[in-house]
């Protein structure tokens, strides 16, 4: 047991130290993990052979990643970007694969090996690129969107690749492995003895089970679990789902990644999507991190030193080919100015899926260990060079185009971010309706799954999830949101949530619902930009109706109401200051109370004041004094 702890500790401490440093240096977390692996593996020799075993376990992170990719792919939005996806992504993948395969063939590699190499290098690093885009705020640029389409297409293309690679197996390699007798992953195969037609049936049945089951059975299950209100059980359910699918796929001899991806797509429309993401995301992150560490730890230093020139040469050649293909595609799709270069430079590296395919090729005896060792180094090296490419973009490309674009009149409307509404009860619903009616995107979160259910029935994008959890806010897209509306039915959680958002995402404007004056001040102190007591305006309306019922003229009632609001607004700041000054935390100290009484009398005064009196909010439309007309004509200049 202690041995495991020690091992886990070594991996964790390497990650904890290396990843933040790498990120600070602008290298991104993937490189951080790789470096951590290199340090504990080849450099310090703290870990050894067990890395391969751990790597098989860590590959489950890839399954989770594909599940999450699937979750992101709402069929509708996928359809909307079909041209870009297939055009840009398909062209990039096809051209790059063919060119690199050609290169490998020229270096006298057999066809199957060349094809696998082409496929491996055609992929770019989703993890590095998307993270860098996010850090530099490039997602919304034309180049950023195009790069995203290409990455998405690649992520999807991985699945058929995983199916294709076993077909490329080299018979001798496979035979050697059989003789060695180390059959590690076929112990639980239900279908090994079945005839082909039955096997086909079993596969169709299990895919159908994932699709239909995902669609019809998951919702009652999630609802049942959500109703219990236990967070960890929801997490357990999410894990159970992904692991269960992976197991099922393994049993029938299909790729677990494919199954997980399918399940993700099926659940993409579900109201539980964001909550699922929030729950799986940390596991995926850690497992993928572990996977990269094992890749780093597995790097063979001897191979590197013996083939340094070859590796550097291949890396540069691969990056040149990839950049060239991307540049041509950017021209074909008429990307303008800096966007063209962003696409070209950002995707010129090989990516983490390259590692996955490499380790998969190794298991399936497609490539020899020697080639795999060299290719791994090429993939890693190209990823190491990516931050350098972004530096070129920042320092050389952007300044060159900035001058040009500044000359044009800037009259375009910025793509405004979405609005996140936490709590879709009687309060949040009205806000949501107003925003939707004005074509603003909203993401609605609520912890009551029945509430979400009825909102979805009327066509709102509502998701089950606890908006007070940072993970949940993250998956709801708070980084790109421009507004947060807190309308939840819990005093303390409201305050906690406002505090957290204000602290973590200072650029977001926060509107919060308060229960009463005291709660409102606490929410305001927590950092909300706009606070309104839930009963204030409705009570004011009711008061106005009361006045009208008693026979007051409706327009005078309006003016009374506006005078009330004006004084309340003006005094509110003073009252708040008094409340906030009170360091002891007792809300109703003397000063505050005195001010509160003063507010009452001010309102009383203002509303009682004679309409004709000067310096009152109630003045206006005041007729001139009687007999003023005679005076006017007296003063008329005689011209």
């Amino acid at each position: 047991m202690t041995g495991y702890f020690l091992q886990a500790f070594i991996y964790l401490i390497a990650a904890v130290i290396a990843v933040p440093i790498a990120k600070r240096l602008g290298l991104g977390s993937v490189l951080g993990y790789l470096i951590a692996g290199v340090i504990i593996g080849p450099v310090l020799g703290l870990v050894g052979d067990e890395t391969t075993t751990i790597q098989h376990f860590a590959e489950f992170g890839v399954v989770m990643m594909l599940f999450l990719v699937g979750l992101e792919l709402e069929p509708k939005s996928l359809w909307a970007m079909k041209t870009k996806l297939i055009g840009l992504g398909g062209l990039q993948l096809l051209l790059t694969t063919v060119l690199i395969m050609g290169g490998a063939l020229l270096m006298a590699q057999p066809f199957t090996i060349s094809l696998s190499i082409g496929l491996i290098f055609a992929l770019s690093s989703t993890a590095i690129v998307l993270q860098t885009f996010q850090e530099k705020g490039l997602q919304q640029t034309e180049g950023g969107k195009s790069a995203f389409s290409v990455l998405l297409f690649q992520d999807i293309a991985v699945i058929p690749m995983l199916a294709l690679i076993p077909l490329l197996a080299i018979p001798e390699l496979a035979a050697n492995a059989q003789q060695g007798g180390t059959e590690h992953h076929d112990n639980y195969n239900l279908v090994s003895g079945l005839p082909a037609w039955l096997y086909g049936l079993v596969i169709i049945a299990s895919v159908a089970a994932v699709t239909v089951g995902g669609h019809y059975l998951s919702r009652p299950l999630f609802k049942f679990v959500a109703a219990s209100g236990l967070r960890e059980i929801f997490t357990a359910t999410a894990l159970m789902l992904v692991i269960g699918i992976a197991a099922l796929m393994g049993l029938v001899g299909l790729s677990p990644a494919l199954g997980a991806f399918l399940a993700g797509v099926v659940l993409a429309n579900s109201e539980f999507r964001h909550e699922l993401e929030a729950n799986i995301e940390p596991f995926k992150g850690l497992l993928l991190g572990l996977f990269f560490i094992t890749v780093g730890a597995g790097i063979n230093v001897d191979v590197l030193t013996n083939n340094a020139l070859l590796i550097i040469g291949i890396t540069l050649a691969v990056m040149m080919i990839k950049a060239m293909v991307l540049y041509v595609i950017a021209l074909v799709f008429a990307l303008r100015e800096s966007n063209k270069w962003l696409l070209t430079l950002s995707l010129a590296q090989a990516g983490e899926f390259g590692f996955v395919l490499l380790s998969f090729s190794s298991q399936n005896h497609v490539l020899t260990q020697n080639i795999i060792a060299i290719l791994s180094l090429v993939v890693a090296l190209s990823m190491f060079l990516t931050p350098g490419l972004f530096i070129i973009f920042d320092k050389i490309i952007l300044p060159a185009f900035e001058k040009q674009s500044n000359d044009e009149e800037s009259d375009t409307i910025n793509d405004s971010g979405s609005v996140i509404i936490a709590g879709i009860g009687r309060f949040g619903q009205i806000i949501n309706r107003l925003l939707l009616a004005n074509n603003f995107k909203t993401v609605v979160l609520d912890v009551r799954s029945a509430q979400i259910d009825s909102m979805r029935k009327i066509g709102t994008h509502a998701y089950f999830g606890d908006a007070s959890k940072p993970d949940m806010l993250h998956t709801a897209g708070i980084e790109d949101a421009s507004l947060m509306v807190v309308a939840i039915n819990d005093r303390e959680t409201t305050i906690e949530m406002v505090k957290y958002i204000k602290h973590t995402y200072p650029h977001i404007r926060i509107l919060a619902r308060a229960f009463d004056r005291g709660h409102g001040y606490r929410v305001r102190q927590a950092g909300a930009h706009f606070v309104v007591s839930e009963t204030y305006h409705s009570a004011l309306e009711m008061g106005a109706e009361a006045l009208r019922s008693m026979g007051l003229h409706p327009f005078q009632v309006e003016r009374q109401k506006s005078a009330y609001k004006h004084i309340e607004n003006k005094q509110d700041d003073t009252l708040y200051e008094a409340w906030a000054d009170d360091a002891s935390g007792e809300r109703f100290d003397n000063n505050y109370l005195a001010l509160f009484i003063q507010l009452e009398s001010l309102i009383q005064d203002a509303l009682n004041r004679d309409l004709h009196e000067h310096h009152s909010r109630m003045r206006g439309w005041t007729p001139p004094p009687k007999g003023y007309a005679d005076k006017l004509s007296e003063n008329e200049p005689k011209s």
Partner: protein
Amino acid sequence: MDSKQLPAQSILVLYAHPSPSRSEINVPLFRDAKAQRHVSVIDLYAEYPDFNIDIDKEQQRLLAHDVIVFLFPLYWYSTPSLLKEWQDLVLEYGFAYGDNGTALKGKRFVCALSAGGREEAYQTDGYNHFSLKQLLQPLEQMANVTGMLYLGPFAIFGSRTAREEHRINLHRQKWRRLLQKLADNTLNIVEATHCENLADCPCITGDIL
């Protein structure tokens, strides 16, 4: 050239457009005014969307400026309703007229407006039977009673087709020129008080055309 040595005049542009999202002329003029020195621009519909005009604040603004400009699209031969509301509320007895009502005395007043109809329509024998200057007489008399010097108006006709006819830049140029001259105090006052339309007056167009 010695006119340049006159002290700079501060200008208050009260802009009233109830539907700016559909505006093609007023919004560009509004932005141009904001970019000009010595000009304060108030978007009345943005500041008082509920028509609760703050009388004290508006009176202070008037006191702080030498030239008052109404910028608006013509609605039924008059200002949009909020600008009328503004007059009703802010130009109080005892402030703008009547006993001691001399706060605006000596200031200059300009109406800058866009009209959908063509210039030919705004003639005695045209569709609208009156010239624009005649139709704006209530505003002219408001200026007279409050002791302000009435200039202009600055009118843009055929505003619904200005964009299609590529006239917007010309209108903007004249508008900026007007504001500039008002600020420098270099406007030919005699011409400006007597002309039918400042936009065609030699006092503005002289240096452009």
